[in-house]
């Protein structure tokens, strides 16, 4: 896969590498600069000491025999190989003797140590260098002056002590700086080399680390694009390395799974809503149409309108139930949850339904002693429980013995279980029992009974809202609907 440089630069790894490289380079430069200046100062100090010794010797020679002896000693020393620089000039700076042919102008103007290295040229050197450099120069027309300076700059730098003799003549004793200059050049070269290698290393790290990260991210982006394209079953790649990319992918995959579930639920609900609201709406419309067409008596109109209202009311009820289930399942959070005594809730609902049960010939009993406090919403629990009790009363009437509904509460480990048991035919089939809490599912047997098919779904949503469960268990005989609430911490 071809990577353009800007793409690499856009990775975090590359940016970090660049930053580190820059910091290291800065440190290296500072260190080298410090070391060079330190060693240069040491070398200069040594040079100055040597020159001082030299000057002391010359001073003694001058004291011994005046100028002629001094000149003789200077000339003698000048001729020694590897000699220091010696120069004696008249008061106007005209060179009289020594081994220096020319100097940077102005060096002789001030007495004492030269403040900075200056360039010079020894006797005879100019011709030699010119011969040596001829092939390189290829006949460039340069004046002697510039040639000299170029030579001087090339390596013949020196520091010197300038003295004025009692007869106003000028003496210069100096030392070539060739050695420290070479030392500095070595350090400079090694610095350049180190920086170059650092740069190269940084680039390599950029390339490999950045590319690896880019590759992973590209595969994730690729997978996300596919998923966005509509393939909701697609998942992000997990390499199994267990690194941060894997953790990220795993979490994103979990999120995708959740989205897929919600999406599936939404689709199912909209299908069901379409079916269960369209059917009564169609009935409503047909009835109105039928009433309008043909000759009708006034009482027929009235009857049709009353039917319309009854039908609309049922529609509104269904619609409200759907809305409520959706809100509860969507994690609707209520500020109105507080301590609810399940025993009191059971007593209330049983008391509410007792006359209905009696009228239907069903015995309705509650076995609740003491208080069973949970965190919850009394209204929602009441509604869920009344739906369950309502169902139990309806379905216990097909019992072979005396129809009975029993409500009981028990505390188990970490849970409070509220069971509503009937002794009717129950739901023998396991799959049917599991399906019974789904929205709009009305098992074959129950189609003859009035109801929207939302009662148990609502109860289930209420239990989800309370971080609990709704289970349908086979009774013996009948059905046992169990609402399991998490017990409160303080109990």
């Amino acid at each position, binding site marked *: 896969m071809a990577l353009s440089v800007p793409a690499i630069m856009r990775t975090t790894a590359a940016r970090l590498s660049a930053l580190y490289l820059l910091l290291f380079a800065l440190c290296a430069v500072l260190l080298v600069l410090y070391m060079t200046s330190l060693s240069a100062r040491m070398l200069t100090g040594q040079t100055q000491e040597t020159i001082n010794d030299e000057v002391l010797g010359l001073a003694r020679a001058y004291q011994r025999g005046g100028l002629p002896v001094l000149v003789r000693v200077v000339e003698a020393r000048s001729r020694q190989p590897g000699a220091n620089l010696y120069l004696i000039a008249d008061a106007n700076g005209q060179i009289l003797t020594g081994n220096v042919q020319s100097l940077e102008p102005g060096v002789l103007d001030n007495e004492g140590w030269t403040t900075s290295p200056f360039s010079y040229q020894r006797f005879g050197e100019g011709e030699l260098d010119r011969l040596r450099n001829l092939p390189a120069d290829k006949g460039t027309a340069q004046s002697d002056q510039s040639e000299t300076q170029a030579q001087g700059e090339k390596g013949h730098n020196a520091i010197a002590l300038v003295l004025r003799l009692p007869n106003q003549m000028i003496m210069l004793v100096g030392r070539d700086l060739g050695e420290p200059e070479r030392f500095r050049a070595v350090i400079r070269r090694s610095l350049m080399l180190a920086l170059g290698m650092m740069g190269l290393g940084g680039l390599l790290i950029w390339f490999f680390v950045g590319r690896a990260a880019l590759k992973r991210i590209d595969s994730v982006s690729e997978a996300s694009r596919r998923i966005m394209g509509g393939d909701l079953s697609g998942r992000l790649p997990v390499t199994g390395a267990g690194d941060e990319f894997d953790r990220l992918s795993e979490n994103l995959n979990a999120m995708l799974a959740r989205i897929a579930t919600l999406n599936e639920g939404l689709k199912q609900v909209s299908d069901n809503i379409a079916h269960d609201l369209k059917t009564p709406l169609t009935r409503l419309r047909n009835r109105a149409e039928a009433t309008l067409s043909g000759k009708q008596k006034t009482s027929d109109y009235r009857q049709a*309108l009353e039917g319309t*209202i009854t039908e609309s009311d049922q529609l509104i009820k269904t619609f409200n139930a759907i809305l409520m289930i959706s809100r509860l399942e969507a994690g609707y959070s209520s500020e109105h949850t507080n301590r609810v005594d399940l025993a009191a809730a059971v007593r209330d609902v049983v008391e509410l*339904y007792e006359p*209905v049960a009696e*009228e239907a010939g069903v015995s309705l009993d509650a076995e609740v002693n003491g208080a069973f406090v949970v965190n919850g919403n009394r*209204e929602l629990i009441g509604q869920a429980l*009344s*739906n369950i009790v*309502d169902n139990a009363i309806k379905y216990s009437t097909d019992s072979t013995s005396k129809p009975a509904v029993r409500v009981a509460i028990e505390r188990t480990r970490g849970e409070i279980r509220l069971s509503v048991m009937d002794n009717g035919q129950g739901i023998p089939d396991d799959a049917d029992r599991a399906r019974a809490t789904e929205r709009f599912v009305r098992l074959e047997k129950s189609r003859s009974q009035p109801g929207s098919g939302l009662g148990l779904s609502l109860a289930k949503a209420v239990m989800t809202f309370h971080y609990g469960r709704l289970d349908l268990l086979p009774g013996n005989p009948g059905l046992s609907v169990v609402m399991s609430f998490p017990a409160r911490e303080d109990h």
Partner: protein
Amino acid sequence: MQMPATQPSSEIAYNGHMKILVMEDDREAADYLQKAFTEAGHTAHVAGDGETGFALADAGDYDVMVIDRMMPRRDGLSVIVALRSRGNTTPVLILSALGEVDDRVTGLRAGGDDYLTKPYAFSELLARVEVLNRRASAKEAETVYRVGDLELDRLSHSVRRAAREITLQPREFRLLEYLMRHAGQVVTRTMLLENVWDYHFDPQTNVIDVHVSRLRGKIEKGFDKPILHTIRGAGYMLKGG
């Protein structure tokens, strides 16, 4: 021309004329309410937005206000809060499309006296407005309620009819107490469920009817005159004489 079934028929004797302010931005719904209240023997004024409604409520002397929660220019709840802070104590019924438990609590906290979720039956709205009417709510302080020859003592929890003691279950007593407090007024099934059982949902089976018919058996059996009447399409009414 027949009247729609939800409108009160002449058999219901709604007592007392009320001056009602309706704040509702849906023109058709507002017109319908005004017409229906007028046919029920009341006077209704309509405001189409919150600002107009607030101005009318602040200036006029109404018995009951019916306020839609969502209105242009100023929402219903803020109108109620503003009115209450100005010392206006006129009973308010909030109409809203939001019907969750929390929405109801928010509405009542803002200063509403009752809460009705859209869509509603007019008979339900009318019954609730009649009960809210401040001129009729003086009974709260009485300790003994009397309707015809029926007598309920709130302190000793005893019920008598024509000097004969009637034994009631606690819940039946509360049911009768509520019916007697609003004697002569229509009381709907949801009003009973809310006020006697403190539940705000619609039970799948009409449990209230069974409770009422049981109570009726106790207070009417052995007496020649019916006292607890069923109002078709609306609810119940306790009425003596």
